[in-house]
């Protein structure tokens, strides 16, 4: 039997007759949590969020309550809240649904969070391509302001805060929180060096700033509703709440599915929820958390110890979908973008595709990423074009090793993890590619297969 979805954030997504205007939202119990929140003490809300154990949904999975705790409140500078709606990790498409279909949920979550951290002003940084989403948000904010859910003296509480929607201009790096802040301030989105520019102390306009993902901020609303402990009951300890898995690739029913953490295994997600692979195909590999997550090979055995000490021995289908389990198998849940590949996939081409993306999106600020990532792209592109060499696999690995951990922001890792994991798990295919091309060249055949990258 297919596991049941736990729809918390996506409760009304795709619901018949549910519209994204404020009346529909209020009719369905909307803004009740904000009304409740403004009667609470801000520090109590922060405590509830910490108790809930909710982890950031943007990729790193850092506990949101902890992040809020790092806020520098002594500086006397205004505090800002920024919603990161620059959803650009390939394979991820959850925030878009929230913004398009349930924008008021985000606004309510944001205002609860803003009240909790006593933010002076809140921003939504939305990626430039989400033009429709931008218009929807602007309208929703106008509606909420009319009803005094944001703006001056919210619901008579004496607390005032507004939301400004800022459109990006189409750069992946704007999803990195300090890059986002630079862009918000009107500069090139060059991520800042940490230390000293930790957003919680020196963020937007050098003021303490909290940057949270859309889904994380929506969770805040639900934490207020059910209390920190109530929220923590969903999922397993350390992996609380629900996750929206965006499944794409070679499955029958790609789409977004919301499950409580650990409620579903990767196998169930692929075969039961998404209807399995296309007829006659076999599972080859899965990238479980957006394109920067390390790839998992279908015929691998994953053994080791979880954080709590329990040993595991899983096949790919047994992996529970939550933060810690995916971490334990050497990948990450990231932004929840599950990319499924069946046995028709050419791994070299898949990696060439990923490298193309990251080389295009590197901001160019620091050396290893600026020079290394495009180099990897050039290598994989050459391999696909028919000039593969057997030593290229090792070269790629070596380049990636020189990037990861040496850069200003996490982009270095995001770009090198795919290469490191593809080579670690499918090196034979990379070598085979070179041999195959050499053989064809010998026979005077066309060397490269006809493929087009993007």
């Amino acid at each position, binding site marked *: 039997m297919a596991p049941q979805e736990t729809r918390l954030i996506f409760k009304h997504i795709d619901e018949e007759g549910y519209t994204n205007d404020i009346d529909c939202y209020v009719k369905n119990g909307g803004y009740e949590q904000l009304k409740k929140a403004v009667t609470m003490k801000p520090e109590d809300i922060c405590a509830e969020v910490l108790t809930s154990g909710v982890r950031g949904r943007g990729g790193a999975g850092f506990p949101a309550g902890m992040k809020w705790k790092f806020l520098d409140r002594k500086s006397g500078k205004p505090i800002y809240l920024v919603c990161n709606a620059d959803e650009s990790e390939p394979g991820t498409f959850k925030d878009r649904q929230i913004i398009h279909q349930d924008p008021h949920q985000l606004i309510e979550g944001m205002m609860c969070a803003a009240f909790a951290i006593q933010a002076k002003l809140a921003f939504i940084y939305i990626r430039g391509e989400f033009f429709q989403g931008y218009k929807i948000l602007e309208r929703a904010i106008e509606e909420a302001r009319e009803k005094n859910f944001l703006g001056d003296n919210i619901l008579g509480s004496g607390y005032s805060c507004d939301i400004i929607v800022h459109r990006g201009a189409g750069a992946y790096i704007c999803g990195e929180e300090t890059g986002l802040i630079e862009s918000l301030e009107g500069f*090139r989105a060059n991520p800042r060096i940490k230390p000293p520019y930790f957003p919680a102390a020196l963020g937007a306009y050098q003021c303490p700033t909290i940057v949270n993902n859309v889904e994380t901020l929506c969770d805040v609303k639900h934490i207020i509703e059910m209390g920190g402990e109530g929220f923590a009951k969903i999922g397993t300890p350390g992996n609380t709440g629900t996750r929206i898995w965006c499944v794409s690739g070679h499955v029958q029913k790609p789409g977004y599915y919301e499950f409580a953490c650990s409620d579903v295994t990767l196998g169930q997600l692929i075969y039961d929820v998404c209807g399995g692979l296309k007829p006659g195909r076999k599972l080859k590999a899965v990238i479980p958390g957006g394109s920067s997550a390390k790839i998992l090979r279908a015929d691998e055995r994953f053994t080791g110890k979880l954080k709590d000490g329990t040993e595991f021995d899983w096949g790919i289908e047994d992996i529970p979908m939550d933060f810690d389990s995916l971490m334990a198998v050497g990948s990450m849940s990231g932004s929840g973008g599950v990319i499924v590949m069946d046995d028709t996939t050419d791994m070299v081409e898949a990696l060439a595709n990923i490298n193309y993306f990251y080389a295009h999106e590197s901001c*160019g600020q620091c*050396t*290893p990423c600026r020079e290394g990532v*495009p180099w990897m792209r050039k290598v994989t592109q050459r391999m696909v074009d028919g000039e593969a060499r057997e030593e290229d696999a090792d070269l790629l690995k070596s380049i990636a090793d020189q990037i990861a*951990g*040496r*850069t*200003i922001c996490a982009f270095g890792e995001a770009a090198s993890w795919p290469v490191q994991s593809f080579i670690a798990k499918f090196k034979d295919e990379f070598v085979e590619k070179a041999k195959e091309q050499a053989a064809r060249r010998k026979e005077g055949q066309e060397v490269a297969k006809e493929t087009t990258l993007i």
Partner: protein
Amino acid sequence: MNIQSIVENITINIDGQDVEVPKGINIIEAVKMVGKGKEVPHYCYHPKLSVAGNCRMCMVEMGMPMRDRGTGEPILDENGVQKIGWMPKPTIGCATNASPGMHIRTNSEMVKESRNGVTEFLLINHPLDCPICDQAGECRLQEFSAEHGRGYSRFIEKKNVKPKRTTLGPRVTLDDERCILCSRCIRFSKEVAGDDVLGFVDRGTYSTLTCFPGKELSHNYSLNTVDICPVGALTSTDFRFKMRVWFLKRTHSICTESSVGANTEIWSREGKIYRITPRRNDAVNDTWMTDSGRVLYKAIESDDRLTQYTIEGVHKTVDEVAAAAVELLQAREVALVASAHSSVEEQFFYQSIAQRSGATVSLVSHYAEGDGLLLSEDRTPNLRGALVTGLIHQLPEREAKLEALARDINSGAVKTIFVVNEDLTKLGIHKEMLAKVKVIYVGTHANETSEVANVVIPSLMVYEKDGTFINQSFRVQRFKTAVPGPRGVLSDFHVLERIAAPLAQEKVAPLSIDDVWERMVSRIAQFDAAIRWSALPEEGVALDASAFLDLNFVESKNLKFDPVAFKETSAAPAETSATIATEA
């Protein structure tokens, strides 16, 4: 002066060696303090600019003493020594500030490997055109590639193509392919020059340095971007392709453009100057200087340079002109028009000459607008020297006019004028008036006054002689001979001794500059008795200025000088400057 005594010192451990460094100093500077030529290689970090952290060359391993999270107790190893928690990833030295107990490894496997990686990355798209690159010989990329590179390339793909020979401004040419995008020039223009004209366009590996649309890099500090460019991307249009830097001799000098007295380095070969660059002095000019100050040396070769000792237009020997001058001066009724362009030593002699000939002394001001940075309102290098040597006691009139002298000429009170480097015809004294008097002219270049002068004594430019200047903050700074002067022309004070000594019925002494200093320290209260020219420290010596605080100097606040603050600190018991003088 002495940073350590002001800032709290802490102990950190660099490569197993405990070192005392000021708290909060970054690791690059801390390692530099260890000495022994130890250096953390870096490109984007510059001590006088904000930290960008983008080149990733200065990676070091960092660890802190471990403490128990709960109790805060130190965690000890089996030997009872506190364990060090090393960070799993290397960290950049420029943005890591020293804190007590910090451990740093600058040469571990991880550090070496990450430097190798960065070096390889920087070179893959670099044109490797060192043989035709002006930066060769003083290129950080070249040096570090030799030191940290792998020696061969694994890159077989096509290199990126970027613009070559871009004109960024009137004095700077850019080769984008060589640029390693360290952003030093951008930060300099924005933070120091205050003219935010440079920026990167395009993204990732195609990032390109350029001027903002409609702008150009034309501010008066643009050549500093060339100095701080760690590679051959920004080059001086003037110096480009002129000379290999390793052929050039470097001489420490002082910029004569204004009373700031920027410390400079003269780069010369076989008696010819090729360029002037700033020399670091944190109390004067940091590491910067103006563009306009860098071209002053070109006057050396100008056609109107005075190269001959003459009397009434006839070439004579130096002894003959000195004797002629002495004769004129002994007749009394002399006026001396002195110069704040003269060195302290020369002014000392002029003071003696004025005293011995009973001359009235005037000094002409050269004031103009300052830029608030390194170009002050007073466009002479040594007005303070004229005060300290007692040549003048009041500041010159703001307006550059010699009305009193004109009256004296007309009334016949002055019969001889001894002019140093000024053109009197521009100062209200016409040629007809000059015809009424005898004129002794000392100067580097010909002008309308020298044309009518009875005695002409050619003088050396600052690049051709030894000496000192006293700048706006009463700092004595030394300059040395970089190139020889015109053939047969003696250093000014040798000629002046030939005039000053006979005026007092003394024998002309063969003087070295240290001999001049011996005389000066006995006569000038501000000079420390023990000090000699050859022993002056490179950064100069701050003098006690308390005797001159009532004077209304024209300089307004600039990069390193605040007249109000200077007055306050100088008025306080002159302890600081005195100690510095002895220390030196």
